């Protein structure tokens, strides 16, 4: 065969080899370390940072807002309104992590004066980290945190321009962030927040939300409790009220307690809304795993032996049937990375080497192949026998 002529054809390999070596010979010998694409990735997702409490404010009679800056004075990461941050709490020998929706706007995190804020309500006796924050944390305290996680944010290529936010209780926080960003002219959507509370003193960030009311931000309080002087909307976030504040094409964002999700799923069905227009925030760790379908009630009082492998190291700890593997690990002082604690983000992806678990069916965000090979998201998996797991070394 012939391409251009015998000599030229057979000399090809030598020719290209020479060309390559010549290119190297004429190249600079100065190391080039610039990785600007990696730099942008790190500006948005720097991983764990040290942050310092810079201010604490009352957000309602039972809730406080905590403002954080970077301990080293550096810039905070970029994020989207509606995302959360994970804070690590060192309590005794344990590190316990919690996700909190960021209630400040992404634009407030920019610049030298930038900050992020979360708003946390005292629990009703079942949330000792929330209470710890409200009771013990003070200005100047330093934490490790990851800022800007989660999928609960407005996506202009997916969502309708008109957004109705359905908030319950402390579920107002991601919407406070969105409202602030819209009011600052940094997020192009029309936001109507329907905020359900029992009585007006339960309303979190009431004054802050009031100050944001404007052309593109509307806040409508809906009270279900007995408050004779209340002039606004009453009842629950029913189909009727939702409809009243909807535009013909509306995306619904929903954040609140688990009971509200169950109620709203039924209400939204009545309105015949396309699936693509409804977005639920993950609801966090199941409050009582025994209430979920298929939970093996006969095991609920058992404590199992949990063997934990990290590298070639092994520990054996106790694990209660009604507590997730993550909680068992945290109790035992074994560090595990967590994000959403709702089975979605997969940060706590864990291999079950032997034994069995119950996976919370509403928090099962696993990949199909992971299921086949016994991987679980440890925040949503509960022991149903003695078991051995492998987790990453932290």
């Amino acid at each position, binding site marked *: 065969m012939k391409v251009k002529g015998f000599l030229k054809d057979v000399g090809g390999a030598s020719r290209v080899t020479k060309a390559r070596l010549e290119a190297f010979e004429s190249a600079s010998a100065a190391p080039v370390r610039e990785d600007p694409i990696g730099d*942008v990735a790190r500006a*948005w997702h720097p991983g764990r940072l040290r942050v310092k409490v810079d201010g604490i404010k009352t957000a309602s009679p039972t809730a406080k807002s905590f403002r954080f800056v970077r301990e080293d004075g550096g810039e905070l990461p970029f994020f989207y309104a509606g995302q959360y941050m994970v804070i690590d709490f060192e309590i005794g020998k344990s590190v316990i992590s919690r996700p909190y929706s960021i209630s400040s706007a992404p634009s407030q995190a920019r610049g030298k004066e930038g900050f992020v804020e979360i708003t946390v309500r005292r629990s009703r006796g079942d949330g000792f980290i929330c209470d710890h924050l409200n009771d013990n944390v003070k200005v100047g305290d330093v934490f490790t945190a990851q800022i800007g996680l989660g999928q609960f944010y407005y996506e202009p*290529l*997916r969502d309708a321009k008109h957004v109705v936010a359905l908030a319950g209780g402390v579920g107002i926080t991601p919407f406070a962030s969105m409202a602030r960003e819209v009011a600052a002219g940094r997020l192009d959507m029309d936001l109507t927040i329907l905020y359900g509370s029992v009585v007006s003193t339960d309303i979190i960030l009431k004054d802050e939300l009031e100050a944001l009311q404007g052309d593109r931000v509307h806040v409508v309080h809906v009270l279900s409790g007995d408050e004779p002087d209340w002039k606004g909307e009453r009842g629950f976030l029913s189909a009727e009220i939702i409809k009243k504040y909807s535009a013909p094409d509306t995306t619904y964002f929903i954040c609140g307690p688990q009971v509200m999700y169950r109620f709203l799923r039924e209400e939204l069905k009545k309105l015949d809304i396309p699936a693509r227009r409804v977005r639920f925030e993950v609801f966090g760790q199941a409050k009582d795993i025994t209430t979920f379908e298929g939970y093996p009630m006969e095991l609920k009082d058992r404590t199992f032996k949990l063997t934990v492998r990290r590298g070639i190291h092994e520990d054996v700890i106790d694990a209660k049937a009604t507590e997730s593997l993550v909680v068992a690990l945290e109790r035992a002082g074994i560090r595990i990375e967590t994000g959403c604690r709702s089975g979605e983000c997969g940060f706590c992806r864990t291999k079950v080497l032997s034994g069995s678990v119950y996976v919370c069916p509403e928090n099962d965000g696993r*990949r199909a192949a992971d299921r086949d090979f016994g991987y679980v998201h440890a925040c949503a998996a509960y022991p149903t026998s003695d078991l051995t797991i492998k987790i990453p070394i932290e």
Partner: protein
Amino acid sequence: MKFYKDHYDVIVVGGALAGLSAALMLADKGKDVLVLERHNLPGGIATSFVRGGIEIEAALHEMMSIGDKDNRLKVGKFFDDMGVDVDWLKVPEAYHASLPGLEVTLHPGLERFAKEVDAAVPGTYDKVLRLLNLCHTVFDSVNELSIHPMSKPMMLLKHEAFVKTAGYSTKEVLDTFQLPQKALDLLAPYWIYVGSGFSDLPFTIFSVLMADYIGYGSFIPRKFSHEMSLKMAERAEAMGVQIEYRQQVDKILVKDGTAYGVRTARGDEIHADYVICSAYPNKVYTSMIEPASAVPAGAVKMVNGRRLSLTAFSVIMILDQPAEKLNIRDYSIFRGDTMDTDALYKNLAGLGPYRYLTCICHNYGNPDCTPEGTCSFSITVLPRVDGWKTVKAEDYDAVKHRVAKQLIDDMSAYFGVNLLDHVLELVIETPMTVARYTGAWNGCIYGYAHTMEDHIIARLQTAEAERFIKHLEFSGAHAISGDGMGPAVTNGRKAAKNVLDTMAEEAAK
């Protein structure tokens, strides 16, 4: 607490396809291997994620070098030999080409493909088949020579086509066939998977690409590329490999010109006889070797003398209608306003509007991959890193949405359906996403560009001289075989083979 053994035979940095392939091959030979992966999953970009309860493929369009069960190609055979039992699905077509004046669906099989080109551009059958056969002959030679090297005269005798086309670009060889432009256009779409314009793309690479994909078709794993990555990792662990996730390697430790271990971001110093590294040589030689003085000047000149190839931008959608209702009728659509690959390559240096798009509807290869009544549809452009290097963190979101919108609008116009009216889930992957999850240098997924100045044959000729640090091997898209998930496996195996050969040589001394 002690998490690692005192010593390993080999530490593999990076648990993606190349690293896992290397680990499998070494474990198969009884070596004690540690794999350190920075993410909490295996696979690198060969992975999937879940949004709104739906699992979504992150990167794989189609896997080459697999072959049907009874006629495996090298990567498929390697998986079979290693006991990595992937549930492969054959992609039904080669591609639908949507090019100026052409709307043609082409299928694998050299003769079938040539017939289909002939139906669109009559009178081209013989020439196209002759070209494809030439590609196949070169492909066979590449595979043969990668296992059994031979002397130059012997090569000329037995692998004439390979030798005689080696020094030419794709354009130079294609020109000799004197095909009409439309036929050339129909042969060109896959160029993007090797990422250089035809005047700079070695014909050798074009041959391998065409013979492999057109000759044998392509495959995807039923449970997304995560199935493949996970099965490799699981198999490696079953063979005794220790894999540790969330462990980023910061330093490769070198003494007397020989690598002897690594240090992780966590601070663990781990020792081994050999290190196989998936991080880019650019990063390794400029900031990972400890001490830095162990880096020879030639290594830095080498990385500076090479051109980074392509990165990836994808907008992936789950749509709330079955594909056919949205006029999406093919697994794979290549759409461009020209098939002048040199012009398209130039266009890829910017930030759009991009002129050449690659679309995948996985449902046509894997019907049950999304819930009933929905489909998955992704639009990908594979830009050069140049444009994306100029994007600032504060502008990143606006740029990514602008580019995504252009891609969606272009394809909406093509289908006559506004895809934006049907979005259940939408994810935008950018070069920064690649950098975030894999740490790849400048988010580059393709390694170094296949060019006439960085020809695969030249890479093979000079490979020995470029092993600058003893007992340190490179695997990944930046290694000799270049980009793609199939070549990643080959790159990993080559690194493992180098280690095994060195072990044998040193034992013999």
